């Protein structure tokens, strides 16, 4: 128990030491922060194995806010969901800490950077360990703050400060909804403790709450308000535009905060609150649609971006959309599984992209790269693995988790079939844009500037070791959730957390051993579309279903789906290969032919411009008016100067009573005394 408390406290100690003794630490900061985070990783692994053996923890440590009937404790809850998040967060965080040693070497904010990433790690761990909504909210806000502080790390750049404002403000909009959701939960159940709330919430189905004059279903309202928070934090559609801009921050931050951990907090929260979401059909539907749309929206933008980090950022947004969609169809396990695998391979992609940027003297434009393979073989191979994982190619992690989500959506009725279709289209685009970047950077025409070429070099060990570790992870983690043979560890581990989602849990259990699916699955490696029919025909009717799920899905169909998505991903990669492996005219021609679409995608569908026109500029104008009228005229002129002028004029008039003649004063005094004494006698 005490050991679990240390998991967040160790990085916090790192933050305190790095922050308070900054002056003495300087470029030695990593000697403190890195070991502490690795220690935290070790403890997280211990927690993970404890949970795997069935030891879950839910304990209140002390009473935080004792205020009448409102009692909030600081507590920790370690179950399978938390444990998997703990491992992901500390793993990626410690690798990013290590990577930072190389990447930020010589930066003048080196010590500050370490202090903040340690603080971030602490906050994120508090968020996932929490056993009540208020502590969750605390972590939620803290990670937002750290994100802001780290995006603005290079605060001399105007773009970085603008991006940090944007991130902070958009998150604030989401957090406002989230806070309202928590308030509504408290009003409804009188508690913010997970266990109490989840137990009580079912008793409130069918109740309504008045919202803007309409009667809305209470549980739906709670679920949607909480989801607003998730939309902000996980960069879902409408509050999405901060995430790509957040790439102004140093690359380790993009990998840690804006890919692997913080942005997944929304999905984590929705999964955590599944007892609430499961009660509301319409909320789930909203979640699924928002997720699917975000996945599509992000992918369309990622197709044409020219900044290497922007592509990966939009891809993150798109993948987060997948996870949210999974939550929306009730496939929390699939969502969490994709969250975990995505955390690994997206961190890898970001770190690899950072490695390239680092090697090319901070060049981020993929049009000024090409043939980089020859300078940095390790980065090349790790990035290839990451890209394959993101594209969803067997046997890399993304294949398993993405297919899981697609399959779950497909199984979720007619509505789910629509989501599935969107998912498949997105999978195609994902494969295409991922490999577009990959080929443009590492193959394609050599467009690296002479100056940068001079310094191009493979990154140091501290950078490549995290890359290789994550690359191995990207290859292996998917197997934990392999649905075809062996044990589906992810479902065994996470499934019990979401027991109330019975109807959605995939019908894969330990019984799925030896169904003869192995050859097909392996054959799928080639991504050959031609094998579909065979896979389907061969396995149709194989009744190796797990008995506990009566709805029983068709195993053969699932294999067909896998092959289909492999084919789709393969097609995307093939297209990228045709167009970008060698310099090619085709993309340019296509861009001219479909100018409108191309420009739309390149300009993020003008969403920034829209927000600029609808929110930013009116707000700025309003602020300008306030400044010129309320501040300069009312406060400065009328109030401040007014008091001075009134006093001065008053003095100018009253000074004439000061005649300097003693007898006048004596006279006034006498009259005064006369009245006072007279009044005293009279009354």
């Amino acid at each position, binding site marked *: 128990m005490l050991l679990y408390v240390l998991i967040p406290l160790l990085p916090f100690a790192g933050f305190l030491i790095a922050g308070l003794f900054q002056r003495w630490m300087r470029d030695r900061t990593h000697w403190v922060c890195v070991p502490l985070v690795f220690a935290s990783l070790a403890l997280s692994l211990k927690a993970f194995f404890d949970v795997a053996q069935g030891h879950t923890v839910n304990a209140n440590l002390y009473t935080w806010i004792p205020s009448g009937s409102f009692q909030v404790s600081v507590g920790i809850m370690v179950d399978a969901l938390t444990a998997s998040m703990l491992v992901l967060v500390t793993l990626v965080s410690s690798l990013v800490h290590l990577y930072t040693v190389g990447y930020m070497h010589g930066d003048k904010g080196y010590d500050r950077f370490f202090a903040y990433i340690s603080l971030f790690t602490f906050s994120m761990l508090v968020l996932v360990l929490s056993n009540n909504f208020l502590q969750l909210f605390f972590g939620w806000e803290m990670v937002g703050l750290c994100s802001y502080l780290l995006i603005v790390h290079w605060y001399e750049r105007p773009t970085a400060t603008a991006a940090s404002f944007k991130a902070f403000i958009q998150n604030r909009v989401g957090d406002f909804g989230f806070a309202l959701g928590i308030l509504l939960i408290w009003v409804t159940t009188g508690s913010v403790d997970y266990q109490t709330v989840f137990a009580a919430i079912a008793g409130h189905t069918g109740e309504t709450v008045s919202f803007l004059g309409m009667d809305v279903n209470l549980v739906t309202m709670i679920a949607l308000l909480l989801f607003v928070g998730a939309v902000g934090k996980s960069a879902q559609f409408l509050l999405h535009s901060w995430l790509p801009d957040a790439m102004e921050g140093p690359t380790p931050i993009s990998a840690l905060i804006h890919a692997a951990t913080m942005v997944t907090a929304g999905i984590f929260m929705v999964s955590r609150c599944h007892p609430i979401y499961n009660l509301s059909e319409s909320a789930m539907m909203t979640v699924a649609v928002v997720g699917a749309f975000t996945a599509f929206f992000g992918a369309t933008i990622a197709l044409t971006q020219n900044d290497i980090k922007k592509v990966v950022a939009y891809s993150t947004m798109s993948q987060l959309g997948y996870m949210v969609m999974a939550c929306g169809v009730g496939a929390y396990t699939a969502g969490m599984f994709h969250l975990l695998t995505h955390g690994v391979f997206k961190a890898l992609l970001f770190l690899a992209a950072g490695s390239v940027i680092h090697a090319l003297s901070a060049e981020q434009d993929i049009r000024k790269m090409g043939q980089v393979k020859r300078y940095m073989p390790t980065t090349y191979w790790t990035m290839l693995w990451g890209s394959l994982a993101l594209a969803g190619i067997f046997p890399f992690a993304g294949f398993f988790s993405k297919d899981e989500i697609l399959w779950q959506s497909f199984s979720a009725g007619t509505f789910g079939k629509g989501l599935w279709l969107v998912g498949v289209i997105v999978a195609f685009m994902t494969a295409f844009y991922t490999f577009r970047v990959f080929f443009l950077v590492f193959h394609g025409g050599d467009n690296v500037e002479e100056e940068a070429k001079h310094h191009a070099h493979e990154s140091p060990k501290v950078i490549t070791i995290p890359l290789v570790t994550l690359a191995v992870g990207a290859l292996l983690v998917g197997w934990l959730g392999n649905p075809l043979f062996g044990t589906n560890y992810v479902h065994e581990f996470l499934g019990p957390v979401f027991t109330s989602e019975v109807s959605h849990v995939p019908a894969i259990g330990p019984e799925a051993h030896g169904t003869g699916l192995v050859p097909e699955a392996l054959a799928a490696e080639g991504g050959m579309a031609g094998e579909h029919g065979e896979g389907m025909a061969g396995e149709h009717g194989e009744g190796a279903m797990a008995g506990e799920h009566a709805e029983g899905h068709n195993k053969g169909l699932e294999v067909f789906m896998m092959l289909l998505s492999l084919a789709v991903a393969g097609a995307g990669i093939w297209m990228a290969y045709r167009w970008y492996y060698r310099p090619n005219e085709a993309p340019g021609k296509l861009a001219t032919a479909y100018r409108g679409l191309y420009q739309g995608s390149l300009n993020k569908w003008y969403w920034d411009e829209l927000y600029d026109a609808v929110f930013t500029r009116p707000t700025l104008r309003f602020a300008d008016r306030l400044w010129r009228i309320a501040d300069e005229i009312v406060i400065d002129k009328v109030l401040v100067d007014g008091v001075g002028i009134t006093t001065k004029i008053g003095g100018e008039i009253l000074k004439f009573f000061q005649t*300097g*003649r*003693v*007898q006048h004063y*004596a006279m006034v005094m006498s009259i005064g005394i006369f009245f006072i004494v007279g009044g005293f006698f009279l009354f």
Partner: protein
Amino acid sequence: MVPLSAYVILSAIIFFIGVVGVVTRRSIIVILLSIELMLNAVNINFVAFSHYLESITGQVFVFFTLTVAAAEVAVGLALLIAIYRNRQTVNVEELDVMKW
């Protein structure tokens, strides 16, 4: 037997003469004299009430008042001379530099 009210009325009249003198006269000497009048009006009150209440305290106070009045006159006259030496006048209407 003279009643107490007679003393009080006498005291009030003398005090009022003193006040009028302080407020109206121009010579500082006369103003000082008027202040003495006011002080002595108070003294009459003290003695009268002392007798009426059969308490000696009032009469003791009168001695103190007389002493203080003597000291006050000494200081007042010294100031008066200092003013006269500087300004060649004791007219209070000319001594009005302490104003705007």
